[in-house]
C-alpha cells in the first residue's frame, strides 16, 4: 500500500471531503498560502480558493463561534485552531454554545463541525504552546473527542468526524505529523468509539493515547526481550469511549497500565481506570492499576526538563514491571 505521513493523511481526508461536499469548508489562522502553522493545509487554497479555505484574523473566540453558527445553519465547517492551547480563548463558544445548543433547544438544530488542533510537547515551544488539554473537552456532554495516533487512523477518523452531526474536537499530535504509515487512497471511515488493539499480548494491558501509543509499542518491544508480553490498546476516541475493548483486554491480561501525555492529575487516565474499577474486569485484576501521565507542571523550555515532564519509554517499562511485581492480596 501507499505510505504517507500523518500530516498528509489529515490533508487528504479534508481535500477529498471538500471535493465531495460543497458544504464543507475550512477556516483558521494562516491556513492560506502559509499552509497553516504546521503545513497541514499547504496547497489547499490553491485547489479550493479563498472562499472555502478561509484565512481568518487572530480571533479564536470569533472563529470558533463563526464555525458553530455556520454549522448550525447548514454548513459543515472544519476549524483549524493553530495550537490546541488557544482553545482557552474559544472556550465559551465550544463549551457553552456548540456542546449545548441542540440539547437546550430541545433536540432542534445540530452543530456538524470539526475543530482540528495540534497538541502536545516536544517541540521546545514551552508552557503556552505544548499542552494536552483533551480531558477538559471529554468532561463536556455534547462534544466528541478524537485523538489519532497513526496516519491510517487520522484519515479514517477525520472522515468519520466530518460525517458526524456533532461538534468533534480532533487532536493532532505535533510530533506525529511526520510519522508515516500505510494509508489507502480512497476515502474510508473509522467509526468514532472503536478502539484499536495496536499490539496483542497476554501479561499486561497498556491503554495509551496519541504519541504514547508509539512509546508504549516501543516499551513492548523492549519488554518482549525479557519475556513479558504486552497488549497495547489505543482508544482512538475518548468520547465516545470503547469500554468493551478495554475491559476485554484487562480480563485477558489481568493487569492495566494507562499512559497519556496530559497531566496525570485530572487526566483521562483516571476515567479509564474507573471504567475498569467499575466493571467486572475488576475481579480479574492481579495488581493495582497503574497510571502514568505528565507531571503536574507547565511544560518547561529546556529540552531535558521538557522530556522529564512527560512519560518516556523507560517510565512505561518501569510501570509495567512494577505492575507485574505487585499482587493484590487475596483475603482467602
Amino acid at each position, binding site marked *: 500500500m501507499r505510505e504517507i505521513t500523518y500530516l498528509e493523511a489529515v490533508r487528504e481526508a479534508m481535500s477529498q471531503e471538500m471535493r465531495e461536499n460543497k458544504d464543507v469548508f475550512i477556516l483558521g489562522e494562516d491556513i492560506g498560502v*502559509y499552509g497553516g502553522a504546521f503545513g497541514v493545509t499547504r496547497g489547499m487554497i490553491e485547489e479550493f480558493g479563498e472562499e472555502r479555505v478561509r484565512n481568518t484574523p487572530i480571533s479564536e473566540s470569533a472563529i470558533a463561534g463563526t464555525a458553530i453558527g455556520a454549522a448550525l445553519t447548514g454548513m459543515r465547517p472544519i476549524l483549524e485552531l493553530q495550537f490546541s492551547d488557544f482553545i482557552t480563548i474559544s472556550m465559551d463558544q465550544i463549551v457553552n454554545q456548540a456542546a449545548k445548543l441542540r440539547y437546550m433547544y430541545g433536540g432542534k438544530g445540530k452543530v456538524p463541525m470539526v475543530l482540528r488542533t495540534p497538541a502536545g510537547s516536544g517541540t*521546545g515551544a*514551552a508552557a503556552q504552546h505544548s499542552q494536552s488539554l483533551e480531558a477538559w473537552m471529554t468532561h463536556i456532554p455534547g462534544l466528541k473527542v478524537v485523538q489519532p495516533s497513526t496516519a491510517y487512523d487520522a484519515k479514517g477518523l477525520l472522515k468519520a468526524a466530518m460525517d458526524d452531526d456533532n461538534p468533534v474536537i480532533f487532536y493532532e499530535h505535533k510530533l506525529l505529523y511526520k510519522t508515516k504509515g500505510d494509508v489507502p487512497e480512497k476515502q474510508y471511515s473509522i467509526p468514532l468509539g472503536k478502539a484499536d488493539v495496536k499490539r496483542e499480548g497476554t501479561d499486561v494491558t497498556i491503554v495509551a493515547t496519541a504519541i504514547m501509543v508509539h512509546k508504549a509499542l516501543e516499551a513492548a518491544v523492549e519488554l518482549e526481550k525479557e519475556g513479558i508480553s504486552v497488549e497495547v490498546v489505543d482508544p482512538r476516541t475518548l468520547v465516545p469511549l470503547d469500554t468493551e475493548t478495554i475491559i476485554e483486554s484487562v480480563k485477558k491480561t489481568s493487569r492495566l497500565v494507562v499512559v497519556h501525555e496530559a497531566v496525570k492529575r485530572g487526566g483521562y487516565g483516571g476515567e479509564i481506570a474507573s471504567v475498569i474499577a467499575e466493571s467486572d474486569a475488576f475481579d480479574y485484576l492481579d495488581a493495582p492499576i497503574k497510571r502514568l501521565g505528565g507531571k503536574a*507542571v*507547565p511544560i*518547561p*523550555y529546556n529540552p531535558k*526538563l521538557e522530556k522529564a515532564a512527560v512519560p518516556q519509554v523507560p517510565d512505561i517499562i518501569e510501570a509495567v514491571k512494577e505492575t507485574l511485581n505487585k499482587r493484590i492480596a487475596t483475603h482467602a
Partner: protein
Amino acid sequence: MIKTVKLPPQITEEKLVNLFKEMWLIRFFDEKVDEFFAKGMIHGTTHLCVGQEASASGACAVLEDRDKITSTHRGHGHCIAKGAEVNRMMAELFGRTTGYCKGKGGSMHIADVDKGNLGANGIVGGGIPLAVGAGLTSKMKEEGYVVLCFFGDGASNEGSFHEAINLASIWDLPVVFICENNQYGMSGPVKEMVNVENIADRAAAYGIPGKVVDGNDIIDVMNEVNEAVERARNGKGPSIIEAKTYRWKGHSKSDAKKYRTREEEKEWREKDPIGRLRKLLIDEGILTEEKADQLKQEAKKEVEDSVEFAKKSPEPSIDTLMEDIYA
C-alpha cells in the same frame, strides 16, 4: 543641541547615542539568534524583531525606570530596551540556569520583572489585559508609574485587545498601548485582516487618543509616546499609538514568506531605522563615522560575549522541574 528635529526634553544627546548602540545590540542579538536557529543550536521557536528596533527603543526611551512594560512573542527588542542584560537573555535561549527564566521559559517568555518588564507572551493579545491590571495597581497604590503595552497588528483582532482597552479607558488607567504594525500577523496581511486604515483609528471606539507614527523613525516614536506617557502619568488615561514598521525576517524560524514580495521587503529595508538614526547623528555632528562604527562593533561584541556566557552557564538539573509552580 540637536537642531533639525524636536525631541522629548529628557532625551539628551548622550541618550540618543546610547539608543543608537542599543538598536545595534537588538539587531545583532536577533541576527545571532537567527543564525543559531538555522544551525539547529537552539531548541523551540523564536520571533525576531530585526527592522523593528526603533519602536522598541523609542518607546522605552521616554520611560522612567519605575515604569513597566508588557511585551509579546516578538519581545527581544522590548526586553533589551527596558534594560535587560543580553547575557541572561542569551542564556535563556540556551535553556540555562542563568537565563531570565532559569531555562524554563525560552524566547517567548523572557521576563525581567526587576526592570519592569512583565514579560514576553506566547499568547497573542495575552499581555494586553495584564498591562491594564498593572495600570490599575499603579492607580490604586498611587505609585505613579505608567505601563507601556506592546502588541502587534494581528493582536488587535483578539477580544482581549478590545475588552482591555475599553476597561482602561473607562477607568482612566495609566497605560499606553503601542501597536507595532509590521504589516502582517504570521502571514495575514493587515490590509485583509482589518477593515480600517489604521489600527490607531480604533481608539475612537474607546474615546481615547489614537496616533500613527513612523515606526522606523525613533524620533517620531519618542515624541508621540512621550506625550501619551505624560498624559497617562497625569491621570488623563490611556492612548493608542500605532508604529508602522516591518519585520525583515520571516514570522518565526520556518517561513517561506509566500505571502509577501521580495520587492516589498527591499523597500522596507531601505527605511532601516538604525541607518536613519545614524544619519541624523552624523549630520548633527554628534557622531563621527568612526565613532558610529565603533559603537556598532561594541554592540556586536556584547552579543558575542553573551554567547560565551550562555555556553559556559550550567544546564538546569532535573530536580528543578517541579520548582516554582506555586508561590
